[in-house]
C-alpha cells in the first residue's frame, strides 16, 4: 500500500498530467485512511464488547455448564459430576417454579397493559404546550430516577397500617378499613401493593419513550385533519396511534422485559411472602443461587429465564415490526 502511494506520487510529476495525478493519488490515500479508520474503529469498540461479553456472555456459558453438572456450595466437597438434563427436568417439574412462572406472566400481563395505557395518557399531557410543563416533566421523572429501594420502601411505608397514608385515607370511607394490613397478610393485597409501587416507578419511563414518539409526528398532519373537520378522537385514532407505532413497540418491549424480570420491589416489599405467594422467576433465581447456593438448578432456571425473555422479545419484534424505519 505504502509503495503504491510513493510510486504514484512520483510518476505524475514527471509525465506532467496534474489532473489525473491528483485523482490517482487521492484514491489510495483515502483507501489507506479507510483502513486506518477501521482499525481504530475496532480498537475503540473493543472495550465495550469485551466488557459486555464478560458480564453477560460469560455467565451465560457458565450457566449452561453448571446446569449440566452438580454444583452446590452447601455440599462443597462433593465432585462436580455430570448430571445431564436432570436439573432441567427437576426445575420444569417443580410446583414452585411453575407457580412462579404463572405469577410472573400474570403480573407482566396486568402491569404492561395498565402501564402502557396510563403512560400514553401521561405522554399526551407532557407533550402539550402549557405553563409549567417543565415542572410537570421534572415531577414525573422523579419517581423513575429514584432507586427501586426508594420506591419499594416508600410504598411499604404507605401500605403500613400504622405509618402509611393508604389506610389513613381509606378510613375516611369505611371505619373497618382503618387497620387493613396489606403486605405479608393477604396474597391479593400484597400483589396490589407491589403492582402500585412498580407502576408508580415505571410508568414515567414508558411515558418518556412515548413522548419522544409524539414529538416526531409533524404538526401539519394534525392541522390538515382539523381543517378537514376531524374530531380529537378521530385524529387520535387515525394519526397519533398509527404514527406512534415504533415508539409503542419500543415501550412494550422495554416494559415487558422489565416486568418479567421483576425482583427488587418483591425482595424489599414482601420477601416473596406471605409464604411463597409473591415469588417471581427472578426472585426464585436469587433464592436458588444466593440462599440455597445451588448453581446447577440456578443455572437451569437462569437459562429458562433467558429463553423466556428471548421468546417474548422475538414475538414482539415479529408482531410489531415497524411499518417504516
Amino acid at each position, binding site marked *: 500500500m505504502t509503495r503504491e502511494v510513493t510510486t504514484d506520487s512520483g510518476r505524475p510529476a514527471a509525465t506532467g498530467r496534474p489532473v489525473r495525478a491528483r485523482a490517482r493519488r487521492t484514491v489510495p490515500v483515502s483507501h489507506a485512511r479507510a483502513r486506518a479508520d477501521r482499525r481504530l474503529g475496532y480498537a475503540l469498540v473493543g472495550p465495550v464488547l469485551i466488557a459486555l461479553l464478560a458480564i453477560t456472555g460469560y455467565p451465560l456459558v457458565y450457566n449452561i455448564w453448571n446446569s449440566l453438572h452438580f454444583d452446590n456450595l452447601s455440599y462443597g466437597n462433593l465432585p462436580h459430576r455430570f448430571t445431564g438434563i436432570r436439573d432441567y427436568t427437576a426445575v420444569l417439574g417443580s410446583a414452585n417454579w411453575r407457580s412462579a412462572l404463572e405469577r410472573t406472566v400474570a403480573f407482566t400481563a396486568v402491569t404492561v397493559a395498565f402501564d402502557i395505557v396510563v403512560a400514553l395518557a401521561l405522554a399526551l399531557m407532557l407533550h402539550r404546550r402549557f405553563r409549567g410543563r417543565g415542572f410537570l416533566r421534572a415531577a414525573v421523572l422523579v419517581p423513575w430516577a429514584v432507586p427501586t429501594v426508594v420506591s419499594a*420502601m416508600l410504598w411499604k411505608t404507605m401500605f403500613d397500617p400504622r405509618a402509611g397514608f393508604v389506610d389513613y385515607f381509606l378510613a375516611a370511607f369505611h371505619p373497618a378499613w382503618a387497620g387493613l394490613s396489606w403486605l405479608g397478610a393477604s396474597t391479593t393485597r400484597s400483589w396490589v401493593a407491589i403492582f402500585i409501587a412498580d407502576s408508580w416507578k415505571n410508568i414515567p419511563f414508558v411515558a418518556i419513550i412515548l413522548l419522544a414518539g409524539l414529538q416526531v409526528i409533524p404538526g401539519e398532519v394534525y392541522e390538515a385533519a382539523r381543517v378537514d373537520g376531524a374530531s380529537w378522537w378521530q385524529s387520535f385514532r387515525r394519526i397519533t396511534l398509527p404514527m406512534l407505532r415504533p415508539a409503542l413497540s419500543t415501550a412494550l418491549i422495554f416494559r415487558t422485559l422489565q416486568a418479567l424480570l421483576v425482583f427488587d420491589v418483591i425482595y424489599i416489599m414482601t420477601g416473596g411472602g406471605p409464604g411463597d405467594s409473591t415469588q417471581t422467576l427472578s426472585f426464585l433465581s436469587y433464592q436458588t443461587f444466593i440462599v440455597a447456593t445451588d448453581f446447577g438448578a440456578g443455572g437451569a432456571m437462569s437459562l429458562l429465564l433467558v429463553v423466556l425473555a428471548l421468546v417474548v422479545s422475538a414475538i414482539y419484534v415479529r408482531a410489531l415490526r415497524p411499518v417504516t424505519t
Partner: protein
Amino acid sequence: MKRRPGTAKIARETLFYLAVVIVVLIALFPFYWIARTALESNAQVAAGVGGANGIIPASLSGAAFRDVFTQAQFLTPLRNSLIVALATTVVTVVVASMAGYALARLSIRGAGPILAFILLAGFFPVLAMIGPLFLMLRSIGALDSIWPLVIVYLVYTLPISTWLLKNFFQQIPADLEDAALTDGATRLQVLRTVIIPVAVPGVFTAAILSFILAWNDFAFAVSFLSSTGNFTAPLAITTFGQSGFQVYYNLIDAAVVIISIPVALLVLLAQRRIVAGLTAGSFR
C-alpha cells in the same frame, strides 16, 4: 361551539389543569409523606398515624436524621455508593464515547450486529447472571467488595450510553471533521480538538444517566455483599429500622430521603437533558 368558544375552552383548560394537579400529586405526595414520617419521633411512630398525628403532624423532630448516621452508620454505605457510582460513570463515559464515536463515524464492518448486541446485552436478565458471577468473584476472592460492582454495573450503563453517544456523534456535522482531516490532522487529533469539545453535552447526559443507574442498583449488591461495612446505600436501607415487632419507619424514611436527594437534584437540574437522553437511543 362556534357561538361560545370561551366557556368550552375554559372548561377544557380547567379539566386539563386539574389532571395535571392530580398527576403531580400522585408523583410527589408520597415523597411528602416520606419526609413527614422521617421527621417523626420514635414515640410518634410507635403511636401510629391518626388523630392529631395526621397529614400534618403536631410536632417535628430531627432525631431520625441524627440516628440514621449515629446508630445506623449510614455514612459508610453512602460513601460506598458514591464511590461505585462515580467510578462506574467515569469508566462508562470513556468507554461509551470511544465506541459511540467509532460506530457513528468510522466505517466498521458489522456495526449493525455490534449495535444490536449492545442493545441486547442491556436486556439480559440480571438475576440470571448473579450465579456465575458469584462463583467467579468467589474464586478470585473478590466477593463482598465494592470494586467488582464497578464492572458489573457497566451492564446497566454501557448499552444506553453507547447508543446515546452514537446518535449524538451522528448529529455532529461531518464537514467539521472532514475539514480538519483534509488539513492533515490524524483521527485522534480530530477526536481531541474537534469532536470532544462539541460532544460535551452528549457526554454529560450519558454521565447523568450512568450515575443514576449505578446509584440505583439493588440486585447485584444484595447478591455479592455480605458485611455491613461494604453495603451500598440501597442495600443498607433494607436493614434499617427493624426492632422486634416495631418497624421504625422514621429511620428508614430518613435514609430514603437522603438517598433520593442526589437523583432528585439531578432530575430537577437536568430534566431536559435526561428526557432527550432517554429518548435518543430508544427507537430511532
